[in-house]
């Protein structure tokens, strides 16, 4: 665990309301796909913002965020050379598969964490099919980046780009295992659809992001509970009850 100021190396728009933020990590910042960082934003916004690690290379950490609310909007104003306080890496990332044929499923800003995962899986020699769902053409990002590691199917709700519909309508039947990251309704639909084993990455509003405040607690299928921040955000598909 780690708390440090990181200098902005880049912060550019890559799709509608979607930005790619590159940060110099400084030495010894190690993370694995599926982990996230907790990002301090400007006052009067008080809570940090949890954002997934999209990719990491030597001393550069890449985050991709959508400006939903005011806090991420202040992030979009950060210029090269400014510093951002980062807590992380946090949580448990994806467990790598035994299986050969892997399907990655990303919805909207659920796509970024799949990039580093795809890169690692590619190195391990897996066959990867990434199915990415977006609202509309202008929201699409990381298609090209993922193509470096995977076969990519882009799905848009309005059909303005790639296939039309929801990701659940364009799943790959030949996959042995899946990794999914996206909004809860998408995850819920996947769980009823897919019989193969898989991992899902969950989103909950967070306070501490280290397991100390119980803001992000969800029920487990065995009647217990887990904290998404510390025990997740990635869980085996049948471990947790989707809220």
């Amino acid at each position: 665990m780690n708390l440090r100021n990181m200098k902005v190396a880049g912060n550019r728009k890559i799709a509608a309301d979607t930005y790619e933020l590159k940060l110099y990590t400084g030495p010894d910042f190690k993370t694995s796909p599926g982990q996230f960082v907790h990002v301090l934003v400007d006052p009067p916004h008080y809570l940090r913002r949890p954002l997934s690690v999209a990719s990491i290379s030597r001393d550069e950490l890449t985050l991709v965020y959508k400006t939903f609310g005011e806090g991420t909007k202040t992030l979009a104003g950060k210029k090269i050379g400014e510093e951002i306080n980062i807590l992380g890496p946090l949580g448990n990332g994806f467990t790598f598969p035994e299986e050969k044929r892997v399907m990655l499923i990303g919805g909207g800003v659920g796509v970024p964490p799949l990039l580093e995962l795809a890169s690692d899986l590619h190195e391990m020699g897996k066959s990867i099919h990434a199915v990415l769902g977006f609202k509309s053409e202008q929201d699409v990002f990381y298609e090209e980046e993922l193509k470096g590691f995977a076969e990519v199917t882009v799905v848009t709700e309005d059909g303005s780009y790639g296939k039309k519909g929801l990701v659940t309508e364009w799943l790959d039947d030949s996959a042995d295992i899946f990794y999914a990251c996206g909004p809860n309704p998408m995850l819920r639909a996947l769980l009823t659809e897919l019989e193969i084993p898989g991992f899902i990455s969950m989103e909950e509003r967070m306070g501490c992001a280290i397991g100390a405040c119980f803001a992000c607690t969800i029920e487990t299928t065995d009647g217990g509970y887990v904290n998404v921040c510390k025990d997740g955000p990635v869980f085996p598909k049948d471990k947790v009850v989707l809220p």
Partner: protein
Amino acid sequence: MKLSQTLPGLKLKNPVMPASGCFSFGKEYAQFYDLNRLGAIVMKAATKDSRFGNKTPRVAETSSGMLNAIGLQNPGVDNIINEELPFLDTFSTPKIANIAGSTTEEYEEVTEKLSSHVDAVELNISCPNVKEGGIQFGTDPALASEVVRAVKRKSKVPVYVKLSPNVSDIKGMAVACEEAGADGLSMINTLTGMQILKEKRKPLLANNTGGLSGPAIKPIAIRMIYEVYPHVSIPIIGMGGIETAEDVLEFLLAGASATAVGTANFHQPLIMPEIIDALPGILEKYGLSSVHEAIGGAHDENIASSLYSS
């Protein structure tokens, strides 16, 4: 610079401790710093049985603050004793157990079990009393007296009562608790607030309302402590929006004998050791030679002097 002090049950190295519920049972922040640095450790609320708490979303952000509706989630008093306390026992820092319940009997039972394992208990009386139709123990002086008296009978250690700020007359509540036997007060718990999700036209928190905390509420905490201080002779642990050593001093001057830091831990995980490091310099800057000297310093000289504030 003398930061140490003795309060009922507590030998404090310094006046800075976590606020209950913002520090779980200590393990997480122990990855960032040595818990022996803290004045005391205050645990998450304990109830009789394990509680899952409210559905999510449980937190929302507000200007200079946050709302929470965790719903007293905790593993239950027995698990706390067996699973959580052994870790905290590896530190020399005094331990305070925060105790919650929905009936007087539950408060008694939890106190009976937990109090022998800790240095003090903090009674969280902001819980709704299910027997009395859900009104909070903390907003009715008679109910508060009753639960304090009951808990005092069971507790093996001093009892601090954590007051709710959602009242017309905080002084009345404080005096009622002192008369019922409280050894100290904690002030303040959160103010009840709400945020509405415009997209869905309903309250954002699954629980509808939540407790407002953070810098936004600091002026209310300071006012309440200042108001209560001259009327009680038991010490006050002050909290509500503390972020800096200067804030700690402001609470001491208002009448607190020690302070707790809650929400600011989420903002800046290293905040407590930072405050502790900065405190001697800040006391010196304002011409003070000890924490003790600062306590109640903003009051006129002629107020009734009290045991924990000279």
